[in-house]
């Protein structure tokens, strides 16, 4: 399993367009990918799941991927996040 922590720095948190981008990215991979925040985990391939978490600015999140392409998945998602969501 591959895992990485991020801090969301975008003012709007994970909303709207950033959420769509994350889900689109995650959906490109075979692995099961989850987004965890405050002890709650959702499927990162689910737009409704991701938005229901209500991740705001300053939130600490964990992304976990498990499957044949888990390393690539984490890398791909990291790129999307660093492009404007957080670090």
């Amino acid at each position, binding site marked *: 399993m591959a895992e990485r922590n991020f801090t969301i720095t975008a*003012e*709007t948190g994970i909303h709207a*367009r950033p959420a769509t981008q994350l889900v689109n990215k995650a959906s490109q991979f075979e692995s099961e990918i989850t987004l965890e925040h405050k002890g709650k985990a959702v499927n990162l391939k689910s*737009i409704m799941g991701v938005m229901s978490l209500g991740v705001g600015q300053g939130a600490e999140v964990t992304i976990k991927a498990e499957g044949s392409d888990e390393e690539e998945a984490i890398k791909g998602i990291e790129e999307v996040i660093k492009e404007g969501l957080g670090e």
Partner: protein
Amino acid sequence: MSNLLTGIGASAGIAIAKAFRLENPDLTVEKKQAEDIKAELENFNQALKTSKQELEVIKEKTREQMGDEHAEIFSAHLLVLSDPELVDTIRNKVREENVTASFALKEVSDQFIAMFEAMDNEYMKERAADIRDVSKRVLAHILGTPIVSLAEIDEEVVIVAEDLTPSDTAQLNKQFVKGFVTDIGGRTSHSAIMARSLEIPSVVGTKTITDEGKNGITVIVDGLEGKVILNPSEEEIQEYKQKQADYEEQKREWAKLVNEKTLTKDGQHVELAANIGTPDDLEGVKNNGAEGIGLYRTEFLYMGRNELPTEDEQYDAYKKVLEQMDGKPVVIRTLDIGGDKELPYLDLPKELNPFLGFRAIRLCLERDDIFRTQLRALLRASSYGNLKIMFPMIATLDEFRQAKQMLEEEKQVLIDKGITVSDSIEIGIMVEIPSTAVMAAQFAKEVDFFSIGTNDLIQYTMAADRMNEQVSYLYQPYNPAILRLVKMVIEASHKEGKWTGMCGEMAGDSVAIPLLLGLGLDEFSMSATSVLPARSQLAAITKEDAEAAALEAIEMNTAEEVKNFVEKKFL
């Protein structure tokens, strides 16, 4: 016999065509055991596939007709249809509970809709509408109930519907859809906004159009005045055809003025600005060539939600408006809540006389936590454009001084933190209370500008509640009493080298415009669609004539006299 309905004119223009009813298909679903689970799943997959194909087409069409931003919503719809949490949950439900796909879809999507509707964030609430729109489409395909496709209309029609969803509106083909009329909705509902950007005449909120608008009857839609005539007489049709031709002709004339400066016949410049409620209104501001924003009503940021907007949310909105106006003046009014505008989450006590009560600046000075948050957001945004801050409902100098003091304190806090704040923000007040108009000479020494809010100034001067139909005859913008107050305010500001604007309905009124020009008003702020007509009117008047007329008007006895006089002289 013809039948007149009134509603809210959501998009200007006149349309005359046959009614086309957009019926909501019967999509009621009952809990039923599935007879063949495999067939149910197959049916569901096929419905998903067809829905996706349709949405791709709608998305492309929207992109071509309205641009990327409007098309974005359908990308979200498509993602919902690919969402494993939705799709897999439905499939599992069919398998495990042995129910039909239609029932499973309804159950699961209703749960998501309820979840998003319960969220206290405006953006999330809108997502509930998306899920509803999308699941309706899939459900119709599962049930084999054809959705009336707007794309298939091939003759000129006026759409009659309870309401239009985003995907309905996006499918409107301008070639055939000449107008639409709905039961519900207001000027800012999604369908109204889309109608304006498509320039399809429409009237919303008629309450009863779906009861009376039978398929095939002739309908006149008057989006200018918010009227709908069903089964018009031959004379009415001729009358409206003329009105339509006049309007089209006039629009062509007005369009020539979009990039022109506002000049009177003798070359005097006055500023024509627009009133806005949200950053979404900026498109209209640009299309109509406004020279600035004379009133940005910030209350909309606070309304239709369950909690106060954060400083960042406000900052984003203010910054967007300032940036997009690209250095042109933007007057932002601080929170004007109370009176007829309530915020349920503030839990304010009910008042017998809300218009005379705890509202606007009175509330903000008391709840300075709310006020200071807004001030910080404004100050932080100030470096992105030409910001002017305006306090509403100021009755005494002391209120203005307190508000200004808070603004200065917050500014210092931000500067100490190293945040850039513009040092040329003008600070002004709304003049809507007679005491302030009378004391304008004193105020003018301390404020940077005045903006006269005529809707309230008239109701307070005439002591006539503007929500009360029975005293509506007292709502008299041309009453010499009002004109004299306006004159006092303008003169007081000019004496101190300051300026005066007006941001009530009166500023865009064709009878008032010559008088206001004559009284020396510097800035006229109105709804965006009034800007070009006003610019065209001003170009035909000399300031000299207007001044003479204004002097005569304030000596008159009644509003009626003033109106007749101006109409004879200028219209």
